[in-house]
Structure formats: structure tokens, C-alpha cells
């Protein structure tokens, strides 16, 4: 197992390198650069600004300097957020995105799995239809509608929860976590329900029943493990996406995470920040996939590490 982890980790380095290369060169294809936004600058000043950030060097040399920096854990300065380096920005923002994301995924997994099981076991009853309705709402209504509506109702109208912001109190977490969790609850419950229904139809669940084990034991000990596999497979990448910050939720609730960097950095042509968050996200995805595969291996004995 340890060897497997080491092998996967080492194998991820070429992946990240390719990711860095593609991102780096693709970014430069977009017209403009970090300073083209100010029309008052003379060509000399523009040239100076570019030189200050090494943008006048040949592309391959800039790329090589960047990789060299990365190998020393230096991800460069942020061109637009001048008071901070890229590592500082990610370091300050990520814990917040991580907290919101982890809570959201935890809530989504627990509620989603429970609802999915309930729907599967009570097929075509009012329980099942209610679960399906929740799923439809969560999947159909976008976050940027649910968020502000919840914010208006619970924050402004009822005054139960803060409208926005991020403080120490747990009350700041409720609305963003629930908003972010809802689409995942919807998807996970559908996934779990479908998977559960399929598993309940298998021959080995029939055998468990034939052994007179009782419905509860049959479900918990025999059906659940197999039914969870597709959900686990989904949770890995979904968690990666969620913990790196949903820009919509962070914007609506004024949460200081890293979600906005993904979009703003690209729009502002803040090259080092784009590279930094992309590599960061890539690493998280790789790590999440590795975790998923390990959990899958724990659940499914047919999977082996070779």
C-alpha cells in the first residue's frame, strides 16, 4: 500500500509538469497582458513594467524560471495583488475554502446517502417521491439563485443568520455550507438510490435474504458496501472541486477563499496567480483521486495494488 502511494505520487509529477506547461502557454495566447488594462501608459513605461516581472524574456525562458521557482516552492508574486505573493494568497485563502468545502461535502454525503437509501428502500412511495423532489430542486435551481434567496430570507428577513462574511461564529458557516451542499445532496442521493436499487437486485442480496438474516442486516452488511462504490468514486473529484472554493458561493457570502482567484486571475492576466492556483488545484485533484482509489480498494477486495 505504501509503495502504491509512493508510486502514484511520483507518477503525478509528470502530470503536474504537463499541466503547468499547457496552462503557461495557453495563458499567453489570450490577448493582452497584466498591464494592458491601463491606457494611459506610454510604451516606455509599459516596457519597464513588463521587464519588472520578467515578461520581456523569451517565453521558454520565463517558463523555465517559473518551474525552477516552483521546485524551490516559490510560486512568484501576484502581479495584481501586489501586497502578497502567490503562496501567501493561497495560504491565506485556502483554509477558508477548505473549511466551507469539507463541511459541505460531509453534509452532502451524509444526507445524500441517507436520502438515497430511504428512496431505494421505499421505492415509488411518498418517501421516494419526496427524495426525488429534493433532488430535482437541488439540481435544477442554480446556486446563484438558492444562495441569495436563502440569504434574503434567513439573513435579512428573519435575522437568524448573518447575511455575509466570515467570522469565528459557526453561524457564518450555515448558509454557505448548505447552499454549496444542496446540489451535491441532490446528486449523491440520486446516485445512491440508483446504486442501492441495483445492488438490492443482485443475487448475493437474495442469498442474504435466503439465509434469513433479516432486512436490516441484509442492507447494512451486504448491500451497503457495494452500493457505496459509485458514490465514493464521485465523492473524490467532487470534493476536490468543492474544497478549492466555489466562486459563486464565496462571492455571494463574501467568504475570503481562493475560489475567486481562478476566475479573476485569468481575467486580469495575473500569470503567476493563474499558474499557482492551477497547479494547486491539479495537486488537490490528484490527491483526491488517490484517496478515492485507496478507499475503493478498501471497500472492494477485487481491487489490488500492483
Amino acid at each position, binding site marked *: 500500500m505504501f509503495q502504491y502511494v509512493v508510486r502514484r505520487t511520483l507518477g503525478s509529477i509528470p502530470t503536474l509538469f504537463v499541466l503547468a506547461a499547457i496552462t503557461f502557454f495557453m495563458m499567453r495566447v*489570450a*490577448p*493582452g*497582458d497584466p*498591464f*494592458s*488594462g*491601463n*491606457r*494611459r*501608459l*506610454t510604451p*516606455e*513605461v509599459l516596457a*519597464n*513594467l513588463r*521587464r*519588472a*516581472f520578467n515578461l520581456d524574456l523569451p517565453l521558454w525562458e520565463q517558463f523555465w524560471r517559473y518551474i525552477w521557482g516552483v521546485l524551490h516552492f516559490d510560486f512568484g508574486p501576484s502581479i*495584481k*495583488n*501586489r*501586497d*502578497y505573493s502567490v503562496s501567501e*494568497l493561497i495560504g*491565506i*485563502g485556502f483554509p477558508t475554502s477548505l473549511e466551507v468545502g469539507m463541511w459541505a461535502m460531509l453534509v452532502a454525503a451524509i444526507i445524500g446517502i441517507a436520502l438515497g437509501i430511504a428512496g431505494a428502500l421505499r421505492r415509488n412511495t411518498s418517501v421516494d417521491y419526496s427524495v426525488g423532489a429534493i433532488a430535482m430542486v437541488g439540481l435544477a435551481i442554480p446556486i446563484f439563485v438558492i444562495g*441569495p434567496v436563502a*440569504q*434574503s430570507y434567513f*439573513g*435579512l428577513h428573519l*435575522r437568524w443568520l448573518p*447575511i*455575509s*462574511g*466570515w467570522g469565528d461564529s459557526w453561524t457564518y458557516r450555515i448558509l454557505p455550507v448548505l447552499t454549496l451542499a444542496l446540489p451535491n445532496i441532490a446528486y449523491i442521493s440520486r446516485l445512491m438510490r440508483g446504486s442501492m436499487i441495483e445492488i438490492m437486485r443482485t443475487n448475493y442480496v437474495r442469498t442474504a435474504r435466503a439465509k434469513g438474516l433479516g432486512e436490516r442486516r441484509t442492507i447494512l452488511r451486504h448491500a451497503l458496501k457495494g452500493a457505496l462504490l459509485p458514490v465514493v468514486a464521485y465523492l473524490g473529484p467532487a470534493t476536490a472541486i468543492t474544497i478549492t472554493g466555489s466562486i459563486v458561493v464565496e*462571492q*455571494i*457570502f*463574501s*467568504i*475570503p*477563499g481562493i475560489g*475567486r482567484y481562478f476566475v*479573476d486571475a485569468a*481575467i*486580469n*492576466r495575473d500569470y503567476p496567480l493563474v499558474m499557482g492556483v492551477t497547479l494547486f488545484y491539479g495537486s488537490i485533484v490528484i490527491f483526491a483521486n488517490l484517496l478515492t482509489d485507496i478507499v475503493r480498494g478498501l471497500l472492494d477486495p477485487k481491487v489490488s495494488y500492483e
Partner: protein
Amino acid sequence: MMLANYSARMTISGMILAAIVALAQPAAAESVLTRGMGSTIGTLDPQINFLAYEGFILDDIYEGLVSPDPAGEPVPGAAETWDISDDGLTYTFHLRDGLKWSNGDPLVAQDFVNGVIRTLDPATASDKGYIFTSTISVVGAAAFNGGESTDPASVGVSAPDDKTVVIQLEKPAPYALYILNSFYFPPLHKPSFEAFGGDFIKPENIVTNGAYHLIENVPQSHVTLVKSPTYWGADSVKIDKVIYQITEDDNTAVKLFKAGEQDITYDIPSDQIEALTAEFGDQVHVTSSTETNYLSFNITKPPFDDIRVRQALAMALDRDAIINKVVKGGYVLNCGYVIPVPNYPQPQQADCAMPKDERVAKAQELYAEAGFGPDNVLALSIESSNNDAYKKIAETAAVMWKQTLGVEAKVNAQDRDSWLAAFNDGNWQVFNDNLVGDFAGPETFLAYMDPRAEAGYGWQSPEYEAAYDKAMSTEDQAERYKLLAEAERALLDTYLVIPLSSSPSRALVNSRVSGWVDNPAGWHSTKYMSVQ
């Protein structure tokens, strides 16, 4: 040696900082103002920051030679009096007695000089240098900023003694006082900059000279300022604490305002202006800003070199419909290039006053005269940013051109940098254009469009240049404005541009706040405000 001195000073500043922080603890009857700040801060470095909302903070914590009053007019700031030479090229500022930095260090004239030099220094990589090279032309500034000269002494800003700042200009700039404020001309506290480098503006290190001092900066969340006891005018500063909240989402800000958690918002979502006005009345502030919107033609590319084509396209537009019916959101219809400025006799582009039928007929006539018609359709593309209001302008113009003249107009809506890059490439035909003036006066707009300024329009006009030059050497504002209006008239008559509107400056201001005065440049210093 300096370091030892410095550490002594830091101890004093530490004590003062402690005192300030102690003051910052909630005390009985402490008045707190919360202001919205829009998107996240780029930088609080006074010589580098460039965004308007960063400017609010800087305006509170730093003070320039002059200070804008609530209406945006320059009044004495760090400088108590000043003299301007007869030829308008030399400004001599006399600083007040007893000015101090927030850490107790005396504030001297050289600090202002250091600030300018740092702004211009290529090593700082600041985009604000153009203020001293193009908005006003300080002697030697362009050469220093461009890197041809490396001697700070060659720049025409000097401090002959601790209380005197002298500025030498290459050409007269009667409006100079409008820019010698905290946004463009903040002083630099050299010791802390040399000790901490780029970190010198972090709350634990920062040294300021304004009415407020920065005590907290939580990235993406908020910035907290408290009243500075070392400010010369501290007695008249009424608000004890200002919290600038970052709220990227305007709708969230409105909710915070309604809940009483944000006293002044940064903007108002355009689709909510009517509803909010109905609910909050005069707490809704919508006024013209210093941004003018217009369509530009690339007159170096046929057929836009033909004035008849340009006039036809201008006349085919129903500007009132575009601005007042489609865009709305507080945009103010403007048939002149310069934003509305008090006492400025704004010329209007000729076709604005024409009755609709006559205007449309003339447009079609000119279009045909220029050789276009159903068998020779003019095809063009409009480069626009994907900002909502701008997209609406471009798309409506395209529709109107199609309906009135049969022109095939395509709109390229793209992100900001691509949009500007399209302009710089020079391959554009029609540009959905804008200009943000450096201050609320005609000079800054007309300086930009001066053919010699080479902003990228490629046009010539000896009349413009003559009127403009004469205006710049005219001290009297009324006279100067008349001459500037002549220059603007020359611009409008060429139909190089089709002026459309000035962008709004919008804010919700809680009625418990007094001291807020609407002004186009958007100066709203907290030191003039008070709350109930």
C-alpha cells in the same frame, strides 16, 4: 546608525500604535462607520494602488499637499498655503507646522518628494507615473519614469527645506491642484519602506499621515481604520472607526445596507435602482462620475476615414433611446465628450439637437452619398467589453444601424484585457470606448484626446491644438473653459467619436450619515462625515 534610530522610533511608534489600538476598543459612544468596498484590494501601497476603492482607504489614511473637500474641491491639506508663479510653471507649497506621521516622526517636505520619486521610479513598477508625465508634466518626470535618467534630482519636485515643496512643470497646468492629493501625491515614510520593503504597508508596520490609521487588513474580508491622534485636524474628525467591507456581490451589499450592517455601499445593482429609490428615497445616490462613454472610429481604416460615413452612423443612433431606455442604471445621456462639469460651456455634437425624422433622413442621405446602399452594404464590427452596460450600448447601436441604414454590424463582446488589446492592435473599426478622467474637469479629458498625446486614434487637428494650448496658459477658469470648449467643438465636429453618456457613480448612503456630498470625482473622505 539609522537602524538604531529606527528601532527607537519603532518603540515610540509601537507605543503610539498601542494607544491607537486601545482607542480602537469599543468605548462608550464610539462612532463607527461601515463602508462597502466592492472587489478585493489590489494593493494598499500608496505609490502603486490604482483602483478607486483602494483610493477611499488611501484618502483616509494619507493626506497629500492639498485635500479634496466634500465636494471634491482642493483645500489646504498638509500644505497650509501655496504660491504659483506668474508663468504657471512653479508651485511652491508651505507645509503646516507640527505635522507628524502616525508613529510620531515629523512629516517633512522631503517625504512628499520621496513619494513622487518612488512613483516614477521604474523599479517600483507603478502605473501611476503617468500623472506626472502626462496629466501634468513635471520637469524630468518622463525621462526618469521611462528609465532614460536615473538621477532623482533631475525630477522637478524638490524640498529646499523641511516645510517647503517646490514643483516645476514643463507646461502650465492650471488644474494641478486637483491632483496633488492623497491618491496621486501621498508622502512616503522612507524608514519603514527601507526596513520592510513591500511589507511596509502591512498593519503591523504601516506609518500614515492622514486622519485615520490602518489597524487591520484581513484579505478579502475587511480593512479597519481608527482615528489618528497625530493628525493635525484630529479635533474636527468625528467618526472614531471606519470599517471597509469587501462585498463583491452588489446584491449582498444591498442586503447588508437594509439590515443596517453597511452604512455606505460601493455601488447599486442597476436593476434595483427604481425599487430602492421607492423604498429609500434620498438615501439612494446616483450621480455622474468621471467616466465618459462613447463610440470611436478608426479613421485610419477606410471607409471610416470618410466623414460622411461617420456622420451617418452617428445620426442613425437614437441616443436617448440607447441611454435612457435600454441602458438606464443611472447612465446620463451626454452629447459632449467631457463629463458634465459645473460652469463648463459644454458643446454638443451637432446632430443631437436635430428632430428625429430629419436626423434619420440626413443619415440615410450621407450613407448613400458615401457610396453605400442595399447593393453595397457597409459591414463593420464593434469591439466591446462584456460589461453589461457596454454590451447593451454596442448591441443597441448595431440594431439601430441595421434598421436605419441596413449596416451589417457585429458586436465582439470580450473580456476587458482582450477588448483593450484589440484597441492596441490597431485593427479595430468601431470601438465601444470610455475614458476615466483623473479629476472632474474638462482638462483631463481633452488632454487625453489631444492629437499629440497619441492615444491611438490617429487624428490631426491644428485648431484643437491651438485652442488647447491657449487654454493651458490661461489662469482664469472661465476663460480657460471657453477655450477648452472650442477645442472640444473641434473634436466633436470631426465625428471621430460619438459621445453617448457619462457612467454613474452610485451608492446607498444611510440617512444617519452626514457629510456625504455627491461629486463626480467620487471624493468622500471619512474625516468630513459623522454618524448619529
